[in-house]
């Protein structure tokens, strides 16, 4: 496509062209009307002057016959400006007047029209335009009364030229300016399109150039860049997710296969190894668990939940702690619960319970390694303004600030070896549950250790109760 064809193909330019055309037609209309009106006015004036002059001369003739007429014509001819006169006898010989003869272009009897004449006594034979009427005067005389219109014609000509030039200028400026403007916009849109094409070709890191003058195209570019950012994040997350799923499912699947093979061998040789089969079944349970977790997460993120009832967070925390207390004790971890009384949220008790147990589960897995008998997990429930907060804190290695946001994502396990059992969906489920209940999850530094806080809106009736909010935090999710 040539540059011009491309330009003509743009909406911006087409609009501009149409706009320009409309403007030119409107201008031409106005200018034409002015020209026509002016011309008409001048012509009208001339005709009126001629009329009144003819009338005056006729009166003179009626008063004093041809003699007086001749005298008046002679007088008027003497100090005529643009007035033209001719009084001729029957033989067309001039009696008086400033025209040298009867203008041949005029009809010889009565009637008017335009004619040309050479100004008598003027600067040598300059031919000029005039309008006039010829009148037959009784007695065989002919009277011509005319008016020089050369100046008027010249004025009209000048005006016409000015108007045409003006129109030309308007058209040229409009088209030229439009061309430049649309070329500029076109260039930037081309830039955007180019970026989009590179991105579609696979380079997700590309961004649309921003000029920085904050105009609408810049704002558009900003929004698009934001969108691209999100898409890139999603793509990266997607890739990570599929890698991790592959990893998490491949291990139990391959173990399952080996065990079944071994069971098959045992079956051939007579006895089936019950133990192999049982362990294979346990392996499939792990697979089912992961799939279930994925499905519930998908459901939660789609925004469906079961029955919501009024849940006392203190009781919920105590229940979860009760469930985990023997495990913690077995591992030598001190599990404590501190709960402000009477904090009620309207929630799906099962989901909240699952979220809290997930947090305790994580704390047991990652927050107590290598601490020996100092390991402790603290579950606390407190009010913070209109919110109730459940926090699970450990004293383990914590999560580095840079990793905190990532830690809340699906299938992300910061422990890269993925050696601990688990689906990697625990925290994302917590986030999904909190969101579903209009709350949020944040990760804080427990100094040392990690403190995960679920903040949920309190059931309205008692949100006035308040206690000092938690210490400095990095809110990574809202």
């Amino acid at each position, binding site marked *: 496509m040539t540059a011009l064809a491309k330009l003509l193909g743009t909406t911006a330019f087409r609009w501009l062209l149409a706009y320009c055309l409309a403007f030119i037609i409107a201008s031409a209309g106005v200018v034409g009307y002015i020209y026509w009106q002016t011309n008409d006015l001048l012509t009208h004036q001339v005709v009126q002057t001629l009329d009144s002059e003819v009338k005056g001369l006729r009166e003179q003739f009626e008063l004093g016959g041809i003699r007086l007429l001749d005298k008046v014509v002679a007088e008027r001819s003497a100090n005529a400006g643009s007035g033209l006169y001719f009084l001729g006898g029957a033989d067309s010989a001039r009696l008086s007047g400033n025209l040298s003869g009867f203008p041949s272009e005029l009809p010889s009897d009565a009637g008017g029209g335009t004619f040309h004449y050479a100004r008598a006594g003027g600067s040598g034979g300059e031919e000029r335009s005039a309008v006039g009427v010829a009148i037959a005067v009784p007695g065989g005389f002919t009277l011509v009364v005319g008016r020089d219109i050369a100046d008027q014609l010249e004025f009209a000509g000048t005006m016409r030229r000015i108007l045409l030039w003006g129109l030309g200028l308007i058209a040229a400026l409009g088209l030229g300016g439009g061309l430049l403007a649309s070329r500029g916009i076109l260039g930037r849109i081309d830039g955007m399109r180019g970026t989009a094409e590179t991105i579609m070709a696979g380079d997700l890191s590309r961004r649309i150039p921003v000029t920085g003058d904050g105009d609408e195209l810049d704002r558009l570019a900003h929004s698009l860049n934001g969108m691209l950012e999100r898409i890139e994040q999603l793509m990266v997350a997607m890739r990570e997710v599929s890698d991790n799923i592959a990893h998490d499912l491949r291990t139990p699947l391959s173990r399952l296969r080996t065990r079944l093979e071994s069971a098959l061998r045992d079956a051939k040789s007579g006895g089936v190894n019950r133990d192999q089969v*049982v362990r294979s*079944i346990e392996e499939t349970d792990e697979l089912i668990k992961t799939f*279930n977790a994925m*499905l*519930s997460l998908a459901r939660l993120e789609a925004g469906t939940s079961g029955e919501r009832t009024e849940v006392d967070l203190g009781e919920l925390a105590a229940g979860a702690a009760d*469930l985990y207390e*023997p495990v913690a004790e077995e591992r030598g971890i001190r599990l404590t619960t501190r709960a402000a009384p009477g904090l009620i949220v309207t929630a799906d008790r099962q989901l909240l319970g699952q979220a809290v147990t997930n947090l305790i589960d994580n704390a047991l897995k990652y927050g107590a390694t290598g601490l020996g008998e100092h390991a402790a997990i603290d579950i606390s429930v407190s009010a913070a303004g209109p919110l109730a907060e459940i926090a699970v804190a450990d004293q383990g290695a914590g999560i580095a600030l840079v990793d905190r946001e990532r830690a809340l994502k699906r299938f992300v396990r910061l422990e890269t070896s993925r050696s601990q*059992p688990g689906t990697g969906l625990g925290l994302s489920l917590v986030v999904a549950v909190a969101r579903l209940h209009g709350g949020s999850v944040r990760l804080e530094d427990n100094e040392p250790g990690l403190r995960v806080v679920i903040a949920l809106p309190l059931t309205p009736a008692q949100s006035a109760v308040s206690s000092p909010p938690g210490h400095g935090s990095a809110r990574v999710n809202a």
Partner: protein
Amino acid sequence: MRVLVIEDDREAAGFLCKALKESGHSAEHAADGEAGLELASEGRFEVLIVDRMLPKRDGLSVIETLRKAGERVPVLILSALGEVDDRVKGLRAGGDDYLTKPYSYSELLARVEALSRRAQPGEATTSYMVGDLTLDRLSHRVARAGEAIILQPREFRLLEYLMKHAGQVITRTMLLEHVWDYHFDPQTNVIDVHISRLRAKIDKAFEKPLLHTVRGAGYMISDGTR
């Protein structure tokens, strides 16, 4: 035990029936809601396994119709996760238990057997006895061979549930549901530790163990004579 499986997935139903038969039960199959309702109304079955989504008549509607007709047969509802329905709805329609797909067969079998026992008389007994272990539901006293055993409230409820279903396999999920009212699986196997604590109290000092672990399935309390 006579079990009716109302399930439109023929392959799944086939496996289920086969497995039930292998476990010593008799199983029949209905492939849609209408046929299922008709068979169930005959009153021959001790347990119904009803899929939530069925052609011709929805699983919940089958159960509701049966309940309205005064049919008290225990019903286990099967439901695929991801559908916009929930356990509460299923139980409200008259189901007795609820299991999401994909489930493990041992889980299903344990639940079916627990359900069938429910239907038997003697539900409201005030005390349980397994071998020389006794549990009094009213006074909350537990004793073995006449020796009193002190249990935490949660341990008591755990033992109570196990003894109520003595001789039956009880899965971890069933314990979580009935003792803790948690209808989800925690990632760590917390139940095993609770069980081993309980076991330490009721079995350790005695020669004959009563609380058994059933590999790949769950736990069972039994004196081994049945």
